[in-house]
């Protein structure tokens, strides 16, 4: 079945979730249940059916290419966990 423990670990890494090893078996069994729920879709004939992108088939509107945002750096950074000199701080990425 789709969700063995390897698949869980692989997917968790793609999703950037540090799932501890002791949680992997339980998560695998829950995800397997969910995937068996959605498995029934494969039996539905859909040849030639267009996938639905928007309920009302609206197209994406375009707007003028003009600056409309204000400089709100201070307000936007107020919730940041760590900043310095108006920049977001992260662990060192280049040695």
């Amino acid at each position, binding site marked *: 079945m789709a969700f063995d423990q390897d698949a869980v670990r692989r997917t968790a890494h793609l999703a950037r*979730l540090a799932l501890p090893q002791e949680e992997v078996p339980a998560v695998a069994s829950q995800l397997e249940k969910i995937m068996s729920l959605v498995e029934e879709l494969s039996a539905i004939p859909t040849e030639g059916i*267009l996938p639905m992108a*928007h*309920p*009302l088939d*609206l197209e994406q509107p375009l707007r003028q290419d003009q600056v409309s945002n204000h400089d709100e750096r201070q307000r936007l950074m*107020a919730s940041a966990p760590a900043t310095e000199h108006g920049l977001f701080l992260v*662990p060192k*990425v280049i040695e």
Partner: protein
Amino acid sequence: MDLHDFSLRQLREGLQKRDFSAQELTKNLLKRIHTLNPELNAFVTVTEAAALESAARADDRLAKGESGTLLGLPMAHKDIFCTAGVPTTCGSKMLKNFVAPYSATVVERLAAEGMVMLGKLNMDEFAMGSSNETSYFGPVRNPWNTKMVPGGSSGGSAAAVAAGLVPVATGTDTGGSIRQPAALCGITGIKPTYGRVSRYGMIAFASSLDQGGAMARSAEDCALLLNVMVAHDPRDSTSHPAAASDLLRGLDRPLQGLRVGVPEEFFGEGLDPEVAAAVQAGIDQLAKQGASIQSIRLPNNPHAVSTYYVLAPAEASSNLSRFDGVRYTHRSSAGESLDDLYLQSRYEGFGAEVRRRILVGTYVLSAGYYDAYYLKAQQVRSLIREDFRRAFAEVDVIVGPTTPEPAFALGAKNADPVSMYLADIYTIAVNLAGIPALSLPCGFTGSGLPIGMQLMGDYFADDLLLNVAHRYQQETDWHLARPNLKAGEA
């Protein structure tokens, strides 16, 4: 009757006639919140000082003779709507310390009307849940029986309205998150046509399904609130150019000649017999008021849950990738490298259900699986929409149960996520198609739990749904029943 039982219309009349001031009204409800909220846990933030200030401003405007429809009337927002200067948590540890730098369009519009926001309402984490138990801030309790869940994800909104903490509240509905808690708490709630209410500043779960709406004790109050919420918003690229409309104009139209369709698929296996009986009585009532009833088929409706659990997690996994521990979210202290910081912050910041959905979404979008799951689900979604198109060629409104069963006990469905997902079996197809739907109370179980009836309409038939619900509520009194709540034993 106490102030907390008043409808918006009654409150407005009271304010206009100066029977009470907006400040007195606000203080009255704040006191009720302080008394009842410790048990119900419906509010996560009470904005007492700001509420009293905006009530004072409303009183000034009322004294000058202003007569806005909602001026000075109290409300609260689901904590998914960004409110400038006020915490917006989305029910998550991830956003525990997030103070939104700007307000959602919905928040701005209701504030501009002079409404008084009393606070922010509890919800399932990132709107993922049907019982309000996934909230980082603890479960909300159902005012009709505090051992029971209020439904979700807008469970705080539904409980607050049912308990008379606020007359109206906002909610959002991605797979039933307005209608299911409305049904379980015995109130009225409407999910409008997709694109009618701006999603700007509404924290995204599944963008092609998410829609804000109104929750209140009556259809008329829903209409009054929603009437201000609907508008085209250039800041939301999926906002419909024809979003705005007068939802009050047709509210009183008689139901003579209304064509009501009853889908066979909604009355099959798994439906609680008490719910079935109450909804059937509701349909009989509509017939008594002049509607003609016919049986219809929605053959693809049984595929709605599986379609949803591909598409919604897929969109969620993409939307929630922005929560990285760097800019405005929970940040782990464990991360030593940048990758560790992402991995640990996201693991710690998201609860188990949100992590599960991110994993499902990541999986169905990952290389090699896209066609089998995502594309397939989007095709089945087309079939589900076609079902509704065919049905609305023959009928004006589709009626059925909102939920397969009344409120269930706290903890009852936590062991098996799929059993929880099936709580939304009748509500999900509506979101996939993007049509409007409303839940209204239509009876009680023998043990005193409310039962909800769902009305579904064609695109932009929001006004018709409110009209049908309003006329029904003119002839019935289910919506007037109130839970028996006393401080200390709530």
